[in-house]
């Protein structure tokens, strides 16, 4: 596969990453709304649903933190697009220079080889390092997000347990906590896809 093709594949992967990020942001927004409703429901249930109320509040904070984190991830993918586009442009320039060297006479060939050599140690090395740094930052942020969502999952499970003590509203609270669990499960699915794309990105 040519370098240009590899970069093209990276760009397509970034598009997929961005789509997953959008899904997670939308789900986090839903969790936020669900948590607000759950807080009101817990208040109606009174002291028996005190624990459920606390957990709903925590889930709301979790949803807000997740939205913020995903916005940062989204910005990072934008940086990745910039870096990959620059690398794509450089790969194209290199391809043309190599084609030029292939058909030039001695003077032309020597001029082109000098330029290719200095590009390899200069601009290309810099761009490559930039690309690796962006990928590392993206991986780190993704790992942090996976941890955050793990916390969300624990909160949702605890809310399900607390729902059992919800008195008259126990059925409704169980339903809400199941919705939390399902939504967080969807986010975990998206994050698993993101991690897969991230690993492929790092390998590219």
């Amino acid at each position: 596969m040519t370098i240009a093709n590899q970069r093209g594949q990276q760009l397509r992967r970034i598009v997929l990453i961005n789509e997953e990020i959008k899904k997670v942001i939308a789900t986090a927004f839903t969790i936020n709304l669900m948590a607000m409703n759950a807080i009101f429901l817990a208040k109606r249930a009174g002291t028996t649903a005190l624990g459920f109320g606390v957990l709903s509040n925590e889930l709301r904070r979790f949803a807000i933190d997740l939205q913020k984190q995903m916005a940062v991830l989204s910005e990072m993918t934008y940086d990745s697009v910039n870096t990959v586009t620059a690398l794509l442009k450089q790969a194209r320039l290199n391809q043309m220079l190599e084609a030029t060297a292939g058909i030039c006479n001695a003077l032309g060939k020597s001029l082109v080889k000098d330029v290719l050599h200095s590009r390899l140690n200069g601009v290309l090395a810099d761009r490559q390092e930039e690309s690796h740094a962006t990928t590392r930052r993206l991986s780190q942020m993704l790992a942090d997000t996976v941890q955050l969502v793990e916390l969300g999952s624990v909160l949702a499970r605890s809310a399900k347990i607390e729902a059992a003590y919800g008195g008259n509203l126990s059925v409704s609270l169980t339903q809400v906590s199941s919705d939390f669990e399902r939504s967080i499960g969807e986010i975990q699915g998206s994050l698993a896809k993101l991690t897969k794309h991230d690993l492929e990105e790092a390998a590219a």
Partner: protein
Amino acid sequence: MKTAETIYEDGEHKWIAIVRDPKRPHYIIDTNEYLIIQDDDAILCDPGGGEIFPAVFSALSAEFDPSRIRALFSSHQDPDIISSLSMWLEFNPEIKCYVSWLWAGFVAHFGGTEKTFVVIPDAGMDILVGGLRLQAIPAHYLHSSGNLHLYDPKARILFSGDIGTALLPAGEDGLFVENFDHHIQHAEGFHRRWMGSDKAKRDWCERVSRLDIDMLCPQHGAIYRGEDVTRFIDWFAGLEVGILKS
């Protein structure tokens, strides 16, 4: 690969035409590039598109050290004219690109920095190459709204951008026009469609007919010499342009 042909030489003053590439993919229009050399200095007129850079560079380097090219002249903004800019900048980051003020910001999408562009006002300007004074002369709306040609009064050569273009069929790829009447049929459709303004055309013909021109060098097709230059200007003056053939 293209070939480099010296079309004018007087001591250290030279015009080299870089023309015809038999290996050019059929979907890319053929282009002519012209290198004007004076002593140790040189300017390349319409350096061409990125796709044909290897062919241009290799042909040119067979005749001249490309690292000595100090400037590029871009008659207008089209990709077949100047999309190779970023490649030339790889060889000389200090290279200047002369282009109409109208297009500098657009051509910058092909590469370069603020320092790369020397903007040419609508009225044109003189460009010094070595001790040689060249004249960038207006050809606006022919076809581009910011279009310039380059005249060398000493060599009596006019680089005329897209004016004079002929889309030559296979096998008719001579460097010079040999039979005007036969040749001009390959130029007619192009001029009728690409040249958008009759007023601009008349104004150009009137101004250019006052210049001493031994050779009129278009960016596509063959070069007009001697009496064919006047013949071409008269033909163009009488041609109905800016029409869509139904």
